[in-house]
């Protein structure tokens, strides 16, 4: 099912008693393609959970519209929207067994008992929880509870599956396993899925599209690869990517960027206005060591092994930067090196507005 959001806004009364309204989501418009996995990403307090709750119908909207396949659902209650919800702490009913939990939405719909058990078992098999049907939630591990929660959300064949921080309660190893499971289950069921996360790695690793938010305002909504390769502003470039993107503050000149605290000009192919204060942002993998032309002098601070290659921490002037080099590249702490930057993975932003040139 296609989801269309138009000028969606949510305002809350602020907690201090000034009576002022706080805008949690600000005139946000987007269109989620059918059958895709979409990540709502952003730092805490950016309004991503508010977005999700408005999609589910738990929270009423202040203004704007939500359409499911061109049907206006803005004022429909959660049970009429045909959405499946998975909560951050799973919210499995503690007094019901796994089977009863999965059956519950069908029981409410008055589906005959034999039929609902059949459907529940079918879904349980899909999420690989069929061996635990007789257990209570307290007898399950976090990952198993997560699977049950997804099964419960999927059993009524929702048109839209919503997951609120689905992985934040799991330990690191399980998190990687479960995010792949979510991907698999989403692919198998083909249901349009929206999940909320503050972890950019989680978002980039499994989603088709990422909607990145900051303080209630959408920063960028594009395909996952696109948001990494083509960030619209400095916030997006900074938020997506691990290690985070290198940022060199300086003044733009036609011959290169005059970085703060550095005597040399950093060559830059991107055009800006002469004298603009800019931020030259470079992905760590776009740093080239042992380069002959267009280089800048740098000093190695530290080296971290990341298995097949080194993560080099180096300084250009006062700026701390990171880049990857081959494990056989001969440097050590304090080495003077020459570095250059690839064009792909290097961006230029206005320092004041964060806008990209």
């Amino acid at each position, binding site marked *: 099912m296609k989801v269309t959001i138009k000028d969606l806004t949510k305002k809350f009364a602020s907690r201090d008693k000034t009576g002022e309204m706080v805008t949690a989501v600000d005139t946000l418009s987007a269109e989620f393609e059918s059958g895709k996995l979409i990540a709502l990403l952003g730092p805490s307090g950016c309004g991503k959970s508010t977005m999700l709750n408005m999609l*589910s119908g738990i929270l009423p909207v202040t203004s704007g519209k939500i359409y499911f396949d061109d049907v206006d659902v803005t004022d429909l209650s*959660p049970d009429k929207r045909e959405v499946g919800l998975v909560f951050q*702490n799973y*919210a499995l009913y503690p007094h019901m067994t796994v089977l009863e939990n999965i059956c*519950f*939405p069908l029981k*409410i719909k008055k589906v005959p008992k034999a039929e609902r058990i059949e459907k529940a078992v079918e879904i349980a098999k899909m999420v690989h929880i069929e061996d635990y049907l007789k257990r209570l939630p307290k007898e399950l591990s976090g990952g198993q509870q997560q699977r049950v929660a997804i099964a*419960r959300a999927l059993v009524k064949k929702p048109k839209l599956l919503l997951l609120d921080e689905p992985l934040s309660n799991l330990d690191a190893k399980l998190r990687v396993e479960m995010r792949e499971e979510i991907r698999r289950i989403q692919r198998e069921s083909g249901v349009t899925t929206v999940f909320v996360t503050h972890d950019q790695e989680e978002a980039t690793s499994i989603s088709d599209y990422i909607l990145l938010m900051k303080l209630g305002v959408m920063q960028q909504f594009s395909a996952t690869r696109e948001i990494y390769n083509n960030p619209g502003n400095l916030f997006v470039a900074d938020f997506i990517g691990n290690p985070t993107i290198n940022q060199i503050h300086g003044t733009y000149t036609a011959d290169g960027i005059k970085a703060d605290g550095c005597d040399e000009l950093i060559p830059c192919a991107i055009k800006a206005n002469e004298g603009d204060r800019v931020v030259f942002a470079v992905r760590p993998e776009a740093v080239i060591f042992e380069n002959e032309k267009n280089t800048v002098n740098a000093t190695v601070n530290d080296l971290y092994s990341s298995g097949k290659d080194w993560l080099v921490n180096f300084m250009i002037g006062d700026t701390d930067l990171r880049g990857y080099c081959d494990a056989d590249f001969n440097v050590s702490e304090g080495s003077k090196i020459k570095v250059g930057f690839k064009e792909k993975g290097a961006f230029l932003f206005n320092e004041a507005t964060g806008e990209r040139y």
Partner: protein
Amino acid sequence: MAVREKKVRKYKDSDEKITARSLITPFVFSLPFMIGLLIFTVYPFIRAVLLSFMEDYRFLSGKFSGYGLGNYTAIFSDPNFINALKSTTKYVLIVVPTSLVISILVAVGLNNVKKLQGLFQTAYFLPMVTSATAVGMIFRWLYDYDYGLFNYFIGFLGIDKIHWLADVKYTMASICIYGIWSMLPFTIILLLAGLQNIDPIYYTAARADGAKSKDIFFNITIPLLAPTIILTSIVNVMSAFKVYDSLFVLYGAKPGPAFNLYTVIYYLYDQFWNKNKLGYAAASAMILFVIIALFTLLQNLITRKTNYYN
């Protein structure tokens, strides 16, 4: 309760070894309470057990003819005691479920009150801190044949006035109404606490699953409240078995208008003070003790079954 015990055990494992020396401090701290417990609870209890087996015990001389089951056979052939057991059981069966149902409805209502919740909670709790004598006075007035509110209200329904306190037919009814009313505050407060312990996320989840308020009440609220419901009903059963103060306030220390409503505790009191049959009193106390102990066991068993969280 079971949870707390488990935790304590865990601490004990990790702590240093228990020696006679390390036990001194906790021993000294608990001593004042222990002394009180020994003098006022443990000793009287043992005495009562012994007393219930002493035949022909004389209070002043302390002489008795020997140990035996005489007291027990005597009270079980006493129609007043059988009557007391029967009417107490009937009282328990009427008062506990009725007050529980009313309390659940009131507690759920109170839990949903958004404004002035504190005020309402206090209002419902008030009967518990009001003295039994004052309440008794008020109820005697409520039950009054000519001027009482109960007769006033049933007048509206076209029912003839009732001699609530004087008519033998209505003794059980009037004592039950009083019993239900006086049981409400404690039950409501406990249930309200239980309700507030339910994570609202389950209601949200159920709503998202398509459940209506009625579905939520029966499928989520009641099962999750079950531990509290069981706890309160067992506590109420135990306290209802010990009913006798209402006889004092409503009938002026008589078991009903025509000595028709003996309760077990009233029987005990009567044997002790009025008839000077200390052995009978002790034996009836033991019978009540066994009944209540059985319910306590039952509570422990069920509480363990309804522990969904750990």
